[in-house]
């Protein structure tokens, strides 16, 4: 064996190692394969900056157009607003408006409110990509190649989940920076707050990408997967507090918002970045997201294991 190896591994007496001995030199840690797979996904992304750029355009448009155009604060502070017969001073009206905004959105401007919701939005969309890449691997035969190697079966779905998390967090960080540049109220932002926000997003992406990998593990049809993603993305987004405060939603929608993990990730971000009063305590938010992430990851692993182990 290994007659042509430029630098063949040698035993101490200078004899070339047999395959049996070389086996011992292998790095058989399951993490080795997991990192290789994660890095593969990330490489496709950071080596193609155009993809990164394109995936940032959407949230930036939402921020710029939606966030700035839907200026709820201006409804109350618009110049001629007053009640006929009463001559309320402008300063009193402004203070009232600001108070109303604070009560409804937890912050005095809608832009800041939405910008923080956007962090959940971009992370959620990143998580949904993981299933698509699973389908492509199956279609292109890459999955079969993986399966004929000693790669730990669990590393295959976990690699997708891990790369989704990393991509999601990097993109969320970029969106956060853009939001600050566009005028996010950064008066209450702290390092600990940012770290806590990203911990929440981490758990949310972990749970959702496990879910989408699980849905994709038996499918070789990218259209079906695309349909599932399209079916779920907007409802998950709108039936949460990411765009609008849950307390003003109709009562039938409230329970959905209450179970939607996107709400909790957003709730964490709002409390930590904007200092808003949340819909639940931070402890509850983290416990809920943690439970969601662990449950779906374990379920995803079990299901993938079943279908990937032949």
């Amino acid at each position, binding site marked *: 064996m290994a007659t042509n190896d430029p630098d063949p591994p040698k035993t101490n007496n200078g004899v070339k190692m*047999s395959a049996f001995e070389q086996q011992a030199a*292998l790095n058989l840690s399951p993490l080795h394969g997991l990192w290789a797979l994660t890095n593969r996904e990330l490489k496709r992304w950071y080596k193609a900056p155009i993809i990164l750029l394109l995936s940032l355009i959407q949230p930036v448009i939402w921020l710029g157009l939606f966030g700035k155009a839907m200026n709820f604060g201006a409804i109350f502070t618009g110049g001629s607003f007053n009640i006929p017969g009463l001559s309320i001073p402008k300063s009193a009206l402004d203070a009232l408006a600001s108070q109303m905004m604070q009560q409804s959105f937890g912050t005095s401007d809608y832009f800041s409110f939405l910008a923080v919701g956007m962090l959940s939005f971009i992370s959620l969309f990143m998580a949904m990509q993981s299933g698509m890449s699973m389908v492509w691997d199956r279609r292109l035969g890459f999955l*079969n190649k993986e399966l004929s190697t000693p790669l730990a079966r669990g590393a295959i779905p976990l690699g997708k989940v891990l790369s989704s998390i990393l991509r999601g967090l990097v993109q969320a960080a970029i969106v956060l920076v853009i939001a600050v540049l566009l005028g996010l109220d950064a008066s209450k932002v702290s390092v600990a707050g940012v770290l806590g926000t990203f911990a929440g997003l981490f758990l949310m992406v972990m749970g959702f990408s496990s879910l989408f990998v699980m849905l994709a593990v038996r499918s*070789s049809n990218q259209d079906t997967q695309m349909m599932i993603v399209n079916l779920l993305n907007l409802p998950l987004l709108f039936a949460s507090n990411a765009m609008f405060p849950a307390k003003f939603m109709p009562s039938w929608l409230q329970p959905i918002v209450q179970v939607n993990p996107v709400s909790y990730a957003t709730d964490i971000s709002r409390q930590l970045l904007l200092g808003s009063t949340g819909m639940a305590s931070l402890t509850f938010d983290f416990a809920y997201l943690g439970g969601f992430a662990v449950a779906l990851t374990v379920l995803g692993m079990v299901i993938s294991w079943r279908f990937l182990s032949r």
Partner: protein
Amino acid sequence: MSTQLLSGPVSAEQVRKEILSIRSLTKTFDGTTNAVDQVTFDVFEGEIFGFLGPNGAGKSTTINMLTTILRPTAGDAVVCGHDLARDAAAVRRTIGVVPQESTADEDLTGLENVLLCADFYGIPRKISKPRAQELLDLVELSKEANRKVSTYSGGMKRRLELATGLVNRPQLLFLDEPTLGLDVQTRAAVWEYIRRLKDEFRMTLFMTTHYLDEADHLCDRIALIDRGKILKVGSPRELKESIGGDIVEVEVQDGSTDFSGPVSGIKHVLGVRRNGAEYRIKTEFGEETAPAVMEALRVAGAKVVRISITQPTLDQVYLEYTGRSIREEHAEANTKVPRRGRMFMGRMRR
């Protein structure tokens, strides 16, 4: 296997040692049809073993089972000394697979693909880097090593698959239609690499191919499979001898009358098969039978248009055992590649 590895180089009497033993291997899909039915054969260390059969005969299913992608419904196999059912992980470490279709990640470069696959085997970078370079050099892709695979031609992708399949220095390499759909020059080149790699790494090769000339020239032994069953195993020479004798093919002008009767009475003739105006006469001695056939047909009133004597070829063996000509298979194989791919995926899902 490990004892043999420790005992040093393979000696002459060890050459016939089995590297792959398959016993009653069966795969049933949907609980009804046996895609692979009670398949039993051995592959010996150091040989090139060919797996021949029509489309859908069960070749890919068998390979998928032996490479641990599909779980057998019944039966056993020992691959490189490891039990397929009980120790799949050990089997995976000792085998290499070169699949039918390109499985490279097209967004990565050739080198990155080989290194990625080395990572799957847990090979540290200080070993895998020089090895990947060496393998890419061997398949003459060093210049293109840092180009994305999406820019590669079909032949280059096939060569990259070869390099990738060898990254763990397998003892047994599975090649599924390694030259399917390639032009003649590329086919010859790919075989040149395969032979060189085999000599270099002293591997055993298990391959399927549609090209009977390839199987004839390259394979030490061949298994014929059809409808999931093994029909015959042997060296190309043994297979040819097994169908017995020479073939005299005659074409007469009048296709409507059956002249089989007078022909079959001729000395040494073993059998006659008629297809319109064409007769395929199996005989022990072609040279003696041919003139007698001409004479018998003349007496019977038939005008001979064409006559040929052939020693048995693998094509004829194939026709004899499967009842189908490899030429039909050729045409099908070249036009139905995408469908085969899908079918393969469909089975994977179970």
